[in-house]
């Protein structure tokens, strides 16, 4: 008997599989990036490299290496030595050179290296005016970001938001993603709400109370021309442009009961999609324009529901928490971001549509109106500090949290623009 047991132990040991060690957490350190001053033939030009550095470190995704720590300032592939950057434990290096063509036209060639792997991962060039250095830096930053992360760069996208600088003054503003170049689209003494971008980047829809009741307006960003949606209902709100740019989902109250409607932008017809006596609001389109998420209190508390437009089939998405609202899809269409509340504390959360679990990702407690970056990696949301509204953000990997520059007045309802092609 003993002999048999020993034999079994021996056999089980010999047929054991190869050792596998799982690594899933990863380091909390940020990737180190060196943006080397570009060479313009006469001297090193720090203006462009500084702009690129500012872009790439805007959301705290990379740690920039100070220029005074760099051992050399290479400007071409030939004089780039990996050893110099390996010593500094640099993960990525961006180098380039600027040639002045005629008058103010610049030709810029740039290279991005993966230092530990000793690999050139991007070689690119761009031509532009010397006065468009900021735009040029955004293009280079976008391409570099994509080469490093595989995700679309978002440095030339914009943010629309409602600014409330003082009592009874409301402004719809559009700014660069870093808060610069703020432009006022419309100003009113009556409340303005719910800005939403058209997917072609040309128009913005929003709600204005200028006539004493909520009305939806679509404003052309270039001409400034405004157009309201004529409906039978007296209360229209929460307009959202479909990603295919053909429809506008919105909320209308025909007899005091808000329901979800869709406005067809081509034939200008309106269709009703919910009929429940509960409040249905805050619609949000799926990336394929076939479904809508909306908030409804039909179960007794605000929860998220998904509506399939072709069949009007409605499915409840959230089950946990006494308050789930303001949901929108990630670009993959499988996950959502939402405001998740329990006992008066509101966090930003993410959730897989098919799973029950809600993952809260923000640390602040009065969070609202999350908006997802078009590449799906960053969330910006409105929050409050001593009744002063401001915009905060975070990256989905949890490595970075940031606040956008404080404006004069409260900022609410950020809406991230789509990618600009």
């Amino acid at each position, binding site marked *: 008997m003993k002999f048999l047991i020993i034999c079994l132990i021996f056999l089980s040991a010999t047929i054991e599989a190869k*050792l596998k060690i799982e690594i899933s957490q990863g380091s909390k350190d940020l990737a180190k990036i060196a943006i080397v001053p570009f060479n313009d033939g006469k001297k090193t030009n720090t203006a462009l490299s500084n702009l690129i550095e500012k872009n790439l470190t805007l959301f705290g995704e990379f740690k920039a290496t100070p220029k005074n720590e760099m051992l050399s300032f290479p400007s071409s592939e030939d004089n780039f030595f990996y050893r110099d950057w390996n010593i500094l434990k640099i993960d990525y290096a961006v180098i380039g050179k600027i040639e002045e063509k005629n008058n103010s036209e610049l030709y810029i060639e740039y290279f991005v290296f*993966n230092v530990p792997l000793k690999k050139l991962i991007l070689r690119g060039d761009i031509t532009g005016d010397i006065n468009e250095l900021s735009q040029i830096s955004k293009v280079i930053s976008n391409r570099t970001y994509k080469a490093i*992360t595989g995700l679309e760069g978002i440095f030339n996208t914009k943010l629309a938001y409602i600014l409330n600088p003082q009592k009874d003054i409301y402004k719809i503003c559009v700014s660069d993603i870093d808060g610069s170049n703020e432009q006022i689209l419309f100003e009113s003494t009556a409340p303005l709400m719910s800005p939403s971008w058209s997917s072609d980047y040309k128009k913005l829809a929003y709600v204005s109370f200028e006539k004493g009741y909520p009305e939806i307006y679509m404003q052309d960003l270039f001409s400034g021309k405004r157009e309201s949606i004529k409906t039978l209902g007296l209360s229209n709100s929460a307009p959202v442009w479909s990603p295919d740019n053909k429809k506008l989902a919105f909320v209308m109250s025909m007899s005091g009961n808000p329901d979800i409607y869709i406005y067809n932008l081509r034939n200008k017809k309106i269709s009703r999609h919910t009929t429940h006596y509960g409040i249905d609001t805050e619609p949000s389109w799926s990336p394929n324009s076939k479904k809508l998420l909306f908030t409804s209190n039909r179960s007794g508390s605000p929860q998220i529901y998904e509506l399939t437009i072709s069949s009007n089939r409605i499915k409840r998405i959230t089950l946990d928490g006494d308050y789930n609202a303001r949901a929108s899809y990630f670009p993959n269409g499988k996950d959502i971001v939402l405001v998740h509340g329990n006992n008066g504390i509101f966090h930003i959360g993410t959730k897989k549509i098919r799973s029950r679990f809600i993952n809260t990702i923000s640390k602040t407690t009065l969070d609202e109106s999350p908006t997802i970056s078009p590449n799906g990696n960053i969330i910006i949301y409105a929050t409050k500090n001593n009744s002063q509204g401001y915009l905060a953000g975070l990256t989905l990997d949890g490595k970075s949290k940031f606040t956008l520059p404080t404006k004069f007045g409260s900022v609410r309802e950020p809406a991230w623009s789509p990618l600009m092609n």
Partner: protein
Amino acid sequence: MTNNLIAFLNSIFFHLFLLAILTIDFSIFVPKPDREKIVPIEFVSLPRMEEIRLKKSNDFLSKRIDDNIKVEKEIKKTVEVNKKKLGLNSLESLRKQIEDTKLSKEKKEVQIRISLIQKRINSIWKKPALINEDIQTEIQINLAPSGEILKYEMISSSGNKIFDDSTFRALSNISFITEVIGMDRKYFEKNFRSFNLVFKSKD
């Protein structure tokens, strides 16, 4: 005719013989009882039929229980004898003992080294920003007993180049896995001479 007559006479003799046997009084050979003697008779109350049955069944049951107890005792005795023979307490403890023997040295040591390696690789692996993709890259590592990485190669790709590159970038930062230094050579050869690192995008 004479034959018939003989048969008739035989039959008469046979029947007369039978009659004689049946009628003979054999009592002449037995002494006659004393008719004057009086024999007293005692009347005793008999138990009812139900009580008889119940008693019988109780007896039967108690016999069965006794039998069972006996069998049980015998089993216990046999088990005890077997346990003593094997030097063990139970089947569970047999299993536990086998596991403990395995765990005691090799597994415990291997587990410690695994957690040290996990900690180290996690600290240098800069996971790329990926959203909602559940992917993994498997890399085979060949080590020298000194901990020197002799070779590493990807044996299964995640399908995402950026993710695969990030794992290689982490490994390119280290030349030695010092966590295996000082362990028993047998355990090293069996577990760490060649092993796989599985980098997962999600926990």
